[in-house]
């Protein structure tokens, strides 16, 4: 146990040294560290509870995604049947599927063949999974039911989440904040963490809007009041204005879609100086816009955002240049935000905020101070106690524990792990637990001495017998830390990380460093008695 070859010694010391080295970047200011080579730049990330910032968990409205897929399917079925000149008497969304009733029963086979073309194979990374995107059943009596399969829906939700992440990134970047963290969580959730953001109100507003912009024609055949009383024409609907909530009758068909916008910038109206948003279409959007404005000079058209009417300007002349402005009684901030939303793009589905945690920098700073103080005090108490109880060997234990803590920081740095306040508590706790390994060894040595062994044999036996126990007892705590890591989030996960890493480094230092120090002391001193 006490036999350490030069190789083993070197290996142990070098390993410990290099791991500790990774802890170094944390103590230098960020500007300096940025000039070092990439591999030396790894450092600990402070959690939001220490740095201050906002944490938002958003959920994609998967019900909305499903509904949209069904409506798209409805359009597809209509198109396919019309192209094939197959007549139908009923076509509607029913529950989770689309049902169509054919006019002629004899068209059934032809219809099925055509409709089957809509179903596409779903692919995985390595090719098709054998699944298809649609399930098509005959219900008898000339009725066909089409339903998107579950894998197809999940795929669509996954795509929606990916798209949303990109759009969120664009929107968040407009706030000009420190690098935000945006990642998916689970099937339909997105985590947004913005360090340093104290008031997430504006962020929430930006993320809460789908920002689907459409240009549509106003239905002039009925007034809003008439429509409210006696019903609305089949191809129109009643929408409310954003500010005053007054009703409008708007055609359902989208004349030009906001998806064709290439740019949107806030500005001021030349005549009235009110804040507006200047926009520009891409070439196909510009063409459509030109066509619509040419055909409808003198009539109003509606600018609809998220199913609410911003304004209904009258087309005075055809707009051929593909650009224009939106005014709707905006404040400067509102015009700015709308421009941001339009540039970033519309979200494929609404996002709901299901969890929010914001920590101000004041509290963050306080937490760091308290964490540091508790660590120092705790360490000092333990060091003094160990020294008082074991004298010289206590010193050895203290050195081992000190290197242990440095190694914990090194590993955390290496992993770019996040340090939270419970994480700091975890490190302090590890100091208390790490000492146990040394205590186990030392008490065992004392027992062996009392049993009559010579000093060197006692020390040797002490290490040998104790190490198995050290392994066993630390593994149970490690299992608890592992479970906690798996089920925990945020700060609690930080605790699991430091505790887990602490246990690994503790076992390492007990098996190697403490043994090494004692071995060299024995070799050097050749003691007649063990001073504990």
């Amino acid at each position, binding site marked *: 146990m006490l036999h350490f070859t030069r190789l083993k010694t070197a290996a142990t010391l070098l390993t410990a040294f290099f791991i500790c080295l990774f802890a170094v970047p944390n103590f230098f200011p960020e500007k300096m560290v940025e000039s070092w080579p990439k591999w030396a730049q790894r450092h600990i990330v402070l959690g939001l509870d220490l740095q201050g910032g906002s944490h938002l968990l958003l959920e994609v409205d998967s019900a909305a995604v499903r509904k949209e897929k069904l409506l798209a399917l409805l359009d597809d079925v209509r198109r396919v049947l019309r192209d094939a000149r197959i007549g139908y008497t009923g076509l509607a969304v029913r529950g989770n599927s689309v049902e169509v009733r054919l006019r002629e029963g004899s068209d059934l086979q032809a219809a099925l063949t055509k409709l089957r073309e809509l179903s596409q194979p779903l692919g995985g990374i390595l090719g098709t999974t054998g699944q298809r995107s649609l399930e098509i059943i005959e219900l008898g009596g000339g009725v066909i039911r089409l339903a998107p399969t579950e894998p197809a829906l999940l795929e669509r939700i996954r795509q929606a989440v990916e798209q949303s992440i990109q759009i969120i990134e664009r929107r968040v970047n407009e706030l000009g904040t420190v690098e935000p963290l945006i990642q998916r969580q689970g099937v339909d959730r997105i985590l947004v963490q913005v360090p340093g953001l104290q008031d997430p109100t504006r962020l929430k507003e930006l993320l809460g809007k789908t920002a689907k912009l459409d240009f549509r024609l106003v239905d002039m055949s009925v007034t809003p009041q008439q429509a409210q009383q006696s019903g609305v024409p089949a191809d129109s609907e009643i929408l409310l204005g954003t500010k005053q909530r007054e009703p409008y009758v708007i055609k359902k068909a989208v004349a030009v879609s906001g998806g064709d916008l290439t740019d949107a910038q806030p500005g001021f109206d030349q005549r009235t100086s009110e804040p507006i948003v200047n926009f520009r279409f891409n070439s196909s959007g510009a063409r459509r816009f030109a066509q619509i404005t040419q055909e409808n000079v003198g009539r109003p058209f509606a600018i609809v955002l998220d199913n609410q009417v911003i304004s209904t300007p009258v087309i005075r002349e055809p707009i051929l240049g593909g650009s224009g402005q939106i005014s709707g009684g905006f404040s400067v901030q509102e015009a700015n935000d709308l421009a941001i939303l339009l540039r970033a793009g519309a979200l494929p589905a609404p996002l709901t905020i299901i969890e929010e945690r914001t920590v101000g920098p004041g509290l963050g700073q306080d937490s760091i101070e308290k964490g540091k103080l508790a660590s120092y005090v705790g360490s000092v108490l333990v060091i003094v*106690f160990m020294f008082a109880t*074991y004298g010289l060997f206590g010193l050895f234990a203290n050195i081992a524990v000190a290197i242990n803590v440095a190694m914990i920081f090194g590993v955390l740095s290496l992993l770019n792990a996040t340090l939270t306040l419970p994480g700091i508590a975890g490190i302090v706790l590890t100091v208390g637990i790490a000492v146990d390994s040394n205590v186990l060894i030392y008490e065992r040595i004392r027992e062996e001495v009392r049993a009559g062994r010579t000093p060197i044999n006692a020390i040797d036996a002490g290490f040998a017998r104790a190490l198995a126990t050290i392994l066993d007892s630390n593994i*149970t705590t490690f299992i608890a830390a592992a479970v906690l890591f798996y089920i925990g989030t945020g700060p609690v996960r930080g605790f699991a990380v430091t505790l887990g890493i602490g246990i690994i480094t503790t076992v390492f230092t007990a098996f190697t460093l403490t043994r090494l120090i004692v071995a060299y002391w024995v070799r050097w001193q050749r003691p007649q008695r063990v001073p504990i």
Partner: protein
Amino acid sequence: MRLLRIVPDDTKFDFMRFRRVSFPISAVLSILAIALYFLHGLNFGIDFKGGTLIEIRTKAGPADLSRMRSSLGELGLGEFQLQQFGSPQDVLIRISQQPGGEEAQQAAVAKVRQALNQIYSNDIEYRRVEVVGPRVSGELLSYGIIGLMLAIASIFIYLWFRFEWQFALGAMIANVHDLVLTIGFMSLAQIDFDLTSIAALLTILGYSLNDTVVIYDRIREMLRRYKRMPMPDLLNASINSTLSRSVITHVTVTLALLALLLFGGQAIHSFTATMMFGVVLVGTYTSIFIAAPILIYLGVGLGRELGRDET
């Protein structure tokens, strides 16, 4: 130098004698703890109940709780709580989960901010805002419970590997008993029960098993070495020989926790208080007075002489 010796060498304290007392006491305490849980309940934080937590600090003088209370009361937010948190300028506002799903929670926060800004204009610092919607709180609760069960199961399997089943079972009973008593304590003291509390419980579990394993290790060694020693004597000898290590380690962990408790601040206060109770008080007691003697009842060492006190 003269070294500090808290526990003298070669103690021969008869721990096993107390098992006729310690088992009933533990049973009673456990029942009491369970009763407390059902009657008094745990002080669930927003992590598990959902709702909103806002921590504010007033910059100009102490906070006017009664004025805040009446102002917030007018907002129609249902149940809410205001509590001083450390200094007279720090106030913790807890608002129960609003009906109406996730959006309603956000709306409530906006209303509260508005009301508070009206009282204090700009002299208020929002230290922390946490909103947990109904979906997430439900999940955190179930994950927490599953986590605890998973930990107990995994550790049980691990111990079964390393020792015999009686040891594994004995350790589990002793340590679940630890958790039960700790939960009882949390109910009694109405300590905030949130995600960090689950962390504390899992750590207590891991750490007090740590302790139990050390004693069991020694017991196993003695069982092999002294094939004819009666169980009570053997268990006593095992505990006595590991006593000094146990005490010293408990002192170091207590010192570390004490530092956290006194200087770690309010944010982790509930965590450290729970840990202190679990690790120091309960952990030590159960390792010695429950985990060891239970082996006798589980049939370890059958066939040996019964020793001085016949079971």
